[in-house]
């Protein structure tokens, strides 16, 4: 054995030396480009040179989606901002969407949050002790929705985008079966059944394995039935919201009806989101219920005929005479952690992000609706006709107040898991009874 030693040592040390060299070499080249950049910015106007005397600042800005990263790269966010603020470097950090909240909680415990912290609306309450109020920020004042999401009477985050929830469908399949765009819940379920009876296509693609893709139903329908965007908070005032006649119960009866109709393929719980997307894209499935954001996803898929794809708002009402409640989602709240060393620079960046210099260009590219007064985004033709329904009524979705959060934590209330259980065919009445019991119990504490 010992006679092999010199050779192993030599081979191993060769590998190590070369491995050590690689980053060094690439480090050198990086250094060079940096100095080049520095030179190119020098011969600029005097005013900018004055600005350059400010200390260099790096703002850390995490994002949770690769699509956002692609857009930021395409529109060159970092350099666009540098043009106006030469001393500020925006450092993007791409994080995994499913890990984002955990990561930020860990970093928060060590006071290591980034300088700009995008949050989902439901997380604002969790982070409120750790972020600064933005009431005086211009971007907040001109935002249509920021004030709707106040926590303890302060604006803590400026929302970037607003979008609606759609059912995406293949026009050709609807034509094949002579299906009209459904206007009521009953028509929607009937349309799915018609396609199922045809035996050719899966009516609705559902990535039930991942849990979250059932959100258009399990998360949003209670507030649609209640016509109350803050329905979670309302629920927290009730002892037994899982009782017949309550909006949650009525909504879930509808959802159970849909799941029981077996219109989501042989095993929706075994399919992940990526596969459900493929099923829809490859014409195996006729419909898929997802938010507006799915549009850019579809465009990025090869071989999808975009002309064949349409979108309609998910109808939840019982008859055409009722108001057509539809969810309006406000997402990606820009906030600034208290631990940031450069709160002023961060505020300035947020103002810039929502200004003419960047916002409408970016939102048009992302195909999302504006949250700013006076800014309208052209969404192209994809949603033509989608909003032409009678009695349309927007329900602004909110994440629930602190009372609700307490109950949610205490009983680990998770509507997406409930949705999975319903797809798996668990006893619905027992589920509702159990929920009533634990809900009441948690409220009494």
């Amino acid at each position, binding site marked *: 054995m*010992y006679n092999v030693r010199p050779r192993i040592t030599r081979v191993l040390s060769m590998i190590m030396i070369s491995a050590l060299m690689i980053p060094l070499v690439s480090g050198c080249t990086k250094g060079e480009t940096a100095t080049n950049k520095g030179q190119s910015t020098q011969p600029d106007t005097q005013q900018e040179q004055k600005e350059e005397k400010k200390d260099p600042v790096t703002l850390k800005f995490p994002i949770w*989606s690769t699509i956002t990263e692609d857009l930021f790269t395409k529109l060159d966010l970092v350099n666009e901002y540098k043009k106006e603020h030469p001393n500020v470097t925006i450092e993007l*950090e791409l994080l*995994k969407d499913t890990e984002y909240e955990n990561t930020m909680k860990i970093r928060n415990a*060590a006071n*290591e949050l980034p300088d700009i912290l995008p949050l989902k609306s439901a997380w604002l309450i969790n982070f409120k002790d750790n972020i600064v109020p933005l009431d005086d920020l211009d971007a907040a004042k001109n935002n249509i929705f920021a004030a709707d999401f106040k926590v303890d009477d302060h604006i803590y985050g400026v929302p970037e985008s607003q979008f609606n929830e759609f059912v995406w469908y293949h026009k050709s399949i609807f034509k094949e079966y002579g299906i009209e765009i459904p206007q009521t819940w009953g028509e929607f379920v009937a349309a799915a059944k018609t396609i199922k009876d045809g035996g050719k296509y899966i009516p609705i693609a559902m990535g039930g394995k991942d849990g979250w893709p059932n959100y258009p139903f399990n998360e949003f329908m209670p507030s649609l039935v209640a016509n109350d965007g803050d329905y979670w908070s309302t629920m927290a005032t009730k002892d037994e919201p899982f009782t017949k006649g309550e909006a949650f119960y009525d909504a879930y009866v509808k959802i159970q009806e849909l799941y029981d109709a077996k219109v989501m393929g042989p095993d929706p719980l075994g399919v992940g989101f990526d596969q459900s997307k493929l099923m829809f*894209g*490859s014409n195996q499935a006729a419909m898929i219920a997802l938010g507006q954001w799915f549009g850019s996803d579809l465009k990025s898929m090869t071989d999808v005929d975009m002309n064949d794809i349409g979108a309609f708002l998910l109808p939840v009402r019982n008859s055409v005479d009722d108001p057509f409640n539809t969810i309006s989602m406000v997402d990606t709240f820009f906030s600034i952690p208290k631990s940031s060393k450069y709160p002023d620079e961060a505020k300035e960046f947020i103002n810039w992000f929502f200004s003419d210099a960047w916002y409408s260009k970016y939102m048009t590219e992302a195909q999302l609706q504006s949250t700013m007064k006076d800014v309208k985004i052209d969404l192209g033709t994809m949603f033509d006709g989608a909003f032409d329904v009678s009695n349309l009524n927007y329900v602004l979705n909110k994440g629930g107040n602190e009372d609700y959060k307490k109950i949610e934590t205490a009983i680990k209330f998770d509507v997406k898991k409930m949705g999975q259980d319903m797809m798996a065919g668990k006893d619905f009445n027992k589920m509702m009874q159990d929920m009533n019991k634990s809900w009441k119990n948690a409220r009494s504490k």
Partner: protein
Amino acid sequence: MTTNRLANPIKKFALYLILLMICMIIFIPLLITLFASFKTSMQIGSEFALKLPESFNFNNYKVVLEKGKFLQGLGNSLFLIAVSVIINSLLGTMTAYAINRFDFRLKKIILGLFLAGMIMPGMITEISRFTIIKNLGLYNSIWAPIVIYAATNLVQLYIYTQFINGIPKELDESAMLDGSSYFKVFTKMIFPLLLPATATLAIIKAVDVMNDMYIPYLYMPSSTLRTLTTTLMYFSSSKFGSWDYLSAAIILVMLPTLVIYLIFSKYIFKGIVAGAVKG
């Protein structure tokens, strides 16, 4: 053990049949992934998974290589591996030598801490670990994972102590009689004699570091510090993942470890045989 036991040709046939079946069980899932990496998302969605791809379509690989900044990731991974392996072999051999050859107070406690490090519930203690790394000023630098990888490694310590156990104490003593110091005994004798074990452990450590995703992800989020494995994550995010790219990324992430493994597998087995189990 004994050749004559296999004289019976039926037995022999059965034996090879079992081994071949095991190989098939190991290979089939990998083959499916390999095939998928050459298919378009539509083909993956509609064809039999074990159907050979119609052509070697490298489009998925192209996208993954470009978007994932794979070469940068590979560079970072190799750097991490090189430094971790060096630090770990030094610390590992030194600790094992001190623990195996000397008696001192605290020895039991140190061993206990190594054991505790192995069975500690990782993710829940992450907040404490993160605080430490931050206070050391290592957050968002490539040294954060290196320090963490160096911190505890019970299996490594175990293998090294087993190995040192196999080196007769009389050798130390005669060297000492010749005037060597303990330090010299370690550098001139123990460390070189441990090299076969070091080779094995280095390869295992290299594979571990290469495959670790969570620590680099959490401790160095800067986009210039992505490793090979964190790029895999880039293609698997829940909303934007798709099978065509993900399978190409999986194959690309697997390749370097497989190459390391196939070149050095001889030493892995030798090291394990020579050290792990003499006791």
